[in-house]
Structure formats: structure tokens, C-alpha cells
């Protein structure tokens, strides 16, 4: 479906193009949020994927072994 069709449909109830654009769900926001989290992890030094530096990391092999 093309977005311009939505604008035409929206006109029936007086919904403007701007209002429709603001309403539609966008994956762009999710991508931006995802990128922001990745950057925060990288630059913030919160590296969950370095098991040896985090004794209780679930990626740490010892973490699983302690239950045996």
C-alpha cells in the first residue's frame, strides 16, 4: 500500500497529511533506539560480552558450571 492512499482516505474525516504522518508506525524509531543502545554499550564500557571481566555474566562458562 502506498502512503499517499492513506492521505486520501484520511481526508474523508478531515485528518491532515501531517497528522497521518505522525500517526503511522515507523520502524525508523526502533532503528534509532537500537543504534543508540549499541553506542551506549560500546562507549559506556558496559560490555556484557566480556565474561571474564564480569564474574556473574551468563556468558561465563563458570556461571553454568556452578549448578552442576
Amino acid at each position, binding site marked *: *500500500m*502506498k502512503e499517499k492512499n492513506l492521505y486520501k482516505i484520511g481526508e474523508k*474525516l478531515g*485528518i491532515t497529511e501531517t497528522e497521518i504522518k505522525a500517526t503511522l*508506525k515507523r520502524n525508523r524509531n526502533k532503528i534509532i533506539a537500537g543504534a543508540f543502545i549499541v553506542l551506549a554499550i560500546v562507549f559506556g564500557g558496559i560490555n556484557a560480552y566480556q565474561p571474564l571481566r564480569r564474574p556473574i555474566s551468563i556468558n561465563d562458562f563458570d556461571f553454568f558450571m556452578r549448578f552442576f
Partner: protein
Amino acid sequence: MFLKKFSPKSAQYELTLQCNMRCIHCNCSAGEKRQSELTSTQWNMITKQLADIGCKTIDILGGELFLRKDWFEISQHVKECGLELLFVSNGTLINEETVKKLRELDPYAVAISIDGSNPSTHDSIRGLKGSFERCRKAIKLLKEANLPTTMITTVNKKNFNELPELRSWLLNKGIAWQLQMAIPLGRFQKDLLITKEDFYATALFIASTRRNYSLKEIPIIGAHCFGYFSGFLPNNVIVPNWKGCQAGITSIGIQSDGGVKGCLFLPEDFVQGNAKESSLYEIWNNPEFCSYTRNFDAGDLSRECKKCKYGKKCRGGCLATSVSITGKKFSDPYCFKLIEENNLKN
């Protein structure tokens, strides 16, 4: 084991079929009473049985519920059984005395139907002159009494264009607004059914209102018929997590003559048992009861829903809409995904 899987979270009571209005969209053709309607003792027994099998809320509808002189007594028993109450009325019989009683009952919502932004549209749809003013007065009384008030608008071709005006009227009044689509059941004629494009426009209207106004300014919601699986409209706008028709799974409907259905809005031929003859425990636990939803299989889907990737989860949308429009179960054509794919493609 059966009970654990299916427990009626909510029940709808058609307290009476008697009504002082003759709405063009009435799905049960309300007007005259049914033959041998349930007595208050029978309703109270039903309430007790529902509470015993785990029901949490009772929606009291009609006809017009306030035409029954024992409405308060029946509702009071619902509260005594520890269940939540909701009333759906046409609003014309609500006065100071009714509001006082409603306050005593502490319902979680009182819903009044308004189907037009002006007396001419509303009165012509509802078949009662002067009802527009009476309904607005009822809403005012309910609000003044601090009762949680909802306005229900059933959208058809006659009032579709008036939605923006209705919104302007409701703004900042603290009244919730539920929009639902009129479907060709009972008295409603198919030629007044909104088109799929208008249906989509209504959903867009709900979504954009939610986006552009705060819930404090106007708490708007689409009924469950406003679904499903749109690629454009946000999921949380209409039905947050649609899992298919809930008839016989979490919902049960009881007609004023004792007839039991999975959902009160399903046509008469979905009645499976009578509360006068068997207990609700027996009816609910009968493996045949609502087997169409309880034992649903993706192979039950019909028409375009058959090849839909969401078919198994969506179960073909609203069953009442599907049956009333297509004559088949599990193929609601008023579906966002379908409309986006077929009607709005070019």
C-alpha cells in the same frame, strides 16, 4: 482441567429485549420483550453460578436495561457476588434517581449510545424523536455524579462524516469514547454498512486522535472489531493483542430468555443451551459449547483468511462481523491487512 483452560472472564446480560428505541443498527432487533424473560430470581442464580465458575465482570445491556423495574436488584446481587459491573444504556431513562442508584452500585463504566453530532442524525438512527437531548442530559448527570462515563458511537454510513464534530463536542469533558462498526445483523440493512475504506478511515481517525490528543483530553478507543494486523497503524491503538474471537473462551452471553451464547452479539443460531434448563456450570463445561472457537484450527479459516500468515493467531477476526457479512465463520473482511493489500494497493 477444562475449567482451567476456559474461564468466563466477562459475561454480557441482555436484561430485556424490550426497548423504547428502534435503532436502525440494532443487532438483536430490540423492541418488544422476549417470550418468558428471566425473572430476577433466575438472573441472581445465573450471577451466582457465573461467580462460581470464575467470572469477573458483568456487562448489563438490553434492549433498554432501565425498562426493567428490577434492574437495581439484579445489579446489586452482581456486586454482592463480588463481580464488577458495566451498564450499556440508550440514556433516555436516566434521571437523578437512576444516577443515585448507579452511584450506590459503583460500576466501572456506564456507557451511553450517541450516534450523531446533531439531533437530526441521532434521532433518525435511533428512531426516537427528542432522544439526542435526553442522552446528552443523561451524560451530563452521570458526569456530575462522578460516574465513569463512556459514549458509544456505532458507525454506519449515516453518521460516518460526523465523527470529527462528535470529537469536538467530547473534547476535555472527561468522557471515554468507544467507536464500533454497525454490522448487518438484526435490524441493520447491509446498504448502510460503511465501506472498507471508510472503516480504515475510522481506524485512522482513532489512531490520529490518540496521537494528537492526550488521553485526558479525549480517551478514545475502537471496539474489538477495529483490527487487525495493520502494517501502518500502530498495534497498541486499536486492539493491543488480538487473539481471535473470545466467545466461549473468556466470554459468555446470556439472552433475556435464558439462551446462552459464547458472545451476546452472535446471531440467534449460536444459542447453545438455556440457563433455565441447565446450570451455567453444565453449559460452560459441555465440550460442545463454543467448540468452534475452543477447538479452532487454522483449517477452519475461510476465504482470504485461509492464506493469511496471521490466520492462526487472528482466527479470522470478529466472528459476528464475519458471519453477518460473509455468511461464513472466521473470515472477517473488515481487516486492516486485507484492506491494505487489496483496496489500498494502488
